[in-house]
């Protein structure tokens, strides 16, 4: 048996909280929402999490997602006002020192590549943009990718390679890569299997698998089969192939809005429109290409309304952050007994 214990309930936002993101060192948590602000939470001397900093005046509409740069010195914010804000602390205080424009309407997601040199964004305008960080504080658009046919919900980078994944209202998942001969970014893979909007995606630690969650109430696990793998279909190009190796249905009763794959414990957590948080673990298997996953923990009524985002702490094992339409951010400690 295992359980999820409440560590603290953090109140500071007005209205719906859309996203939570941990600093790479795990000691700061950022949250954002419809009140157009970013809250930065940290532990005080007594060990309680407090809202130390509230960033305002960067955006004129809802802030949908925030992301820390891998160095931890920058925060990027995606807003319904069609812009991306880049915040830093160079003046001693957090300030929005760059605004990236180009998307035609709401920016839904932003993500920093692991090397810190690339930033990706996506929008309701159906496009995915790749931004290159040329010089200090100089952001150049390296690609505008129009592969999706609908609203793009989330972008995520592969943890070790410059591969970008995006998921969309068009029900598909796409992977993008840069062609190193002509520096053109192209869509290398399109994966279809979900029956409705794909809301989020999370890679495992080495990037050999990822999980996707959807409005179709399922969680799917995908695995990469490289060229010399006998399981890979013959006749394909020398590209590796991603395949859906497991579909978890029947666990979630409404749309699943977010998924986080812990790089310390390998556990997968989901945030759902039925107010619950669920944790999944790979079970023992015989065939490595057909693993099964079991739900090892469910916290019904984790929040009073939809759970919009879930995120494992990158340093402290089992520490989980979540946020909800109910206006709160919650911290949890997962314990496997």
């Amino acid at each position: 048996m295992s359980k999820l214990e409440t560590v603290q309930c953090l109140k500071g936002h007005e209205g719906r909280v859309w996203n939570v993101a941990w600093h790479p060192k795990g000691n700061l948590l950022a949250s954002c929402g419809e009140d157009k602000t970013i809250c930065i939470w940290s532990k005080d001397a007594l060990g309680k999490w407090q809202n130390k900093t509230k960033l305002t005046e960067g955006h004129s509409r809802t802030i949908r997602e925030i992301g820390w740069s891998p160095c931890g010195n920058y925060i990027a914010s995606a807003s319904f006002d069609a812009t991306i804000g880049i915040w830093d602390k160079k003046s001693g205080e957090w300030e929005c020192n760059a605004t990236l424009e180009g998307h035609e309407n709401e920016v839904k997601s932003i993500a920093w590549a692991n090397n810190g040199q690339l930033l990706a964004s996506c929008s309701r305008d159906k496009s995915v943009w790749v931004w290159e960080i040329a010089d200090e504080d100089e952001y150049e658009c390296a690609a505008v990718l129009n592969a999706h046919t609908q609203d793009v919900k989330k972008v995520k980078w592969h943890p070790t390679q410059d591969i970008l994944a995006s998921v969309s209202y068009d029900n598909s998942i796409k992977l993008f890569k840069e062609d190193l001969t002509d520096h053109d970014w192209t869509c290398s893979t399109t994966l279809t299997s979900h029956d409705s909007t794909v809301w989020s995606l999370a890679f495992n630690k080495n990037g050999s698998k990822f999980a996707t969650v959807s409005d179709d109430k399922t969680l799917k696990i995908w695995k990469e089969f490289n060229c010399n793998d006998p399981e890979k279909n013959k006749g394909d190009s020398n590209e590796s192939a991603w395949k859906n190796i497991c579909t978890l249905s029947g666990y979630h009763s409404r749309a699943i809005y977010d998924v986080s794959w812990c790089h310390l414990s390998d556990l997968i957590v989901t945030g759902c429109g039925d107010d619950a948080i669920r944790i999944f673990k790979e079970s023992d298997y015989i065939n490595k290409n057909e693993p099964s996953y079991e739900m090892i923990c469910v916290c019904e009524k984790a929040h009073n309304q939809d759970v919009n985002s879930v995120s494992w702490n990158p340093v402290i094992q089992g520490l989980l952050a979540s946020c909800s339409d109910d206006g709160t951010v919650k911290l949890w400690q997962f314990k496997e007994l």
Partner: protein
Amino acid sequence: MPTSYENVNPKIYEKSENRELTVEEEDELISDEIDCREVFDLLRNVSDPEYPLTLEELNVVSQNHIKVINETNEVVVNFTPTVPHCSMATLIGLSLRVQLLRALPSRYKVDICITPGSHASETAVNKQLNDKERVAAALENPHLTEVINHCIGKTLL
């Protein structure tokens, strides 16, 4: 008033009687759960975006197309556009959603869907109406909220 209607001669339905209050319902000490009649009462006087008529009079909403499951806090509202190509379907659905968002306790999960078989773009409209992120973005549009407020404004009278 618009110069041309999509449905030139809509059928007008009779309004239902007001709900009769029982002694139990008026007793503050007895808790009564929200039922489909109560949800219907919240929606029946929403105006059509085109006609000076209510959604009840156009039979767009009716009590037997509303389901309330109190155990799971679910409310499902089916609405029936007056014609299968009604371009106002999304706007009507959005008005119903906003009205329930404001009037029902926040614990309720509301699904707004077109009555199966009554609209040509049923799937696309349903998907959009139930994507809360797109609904949230739409409601930040001042022009659209003004139109919606106009449709639901009269419900208070």
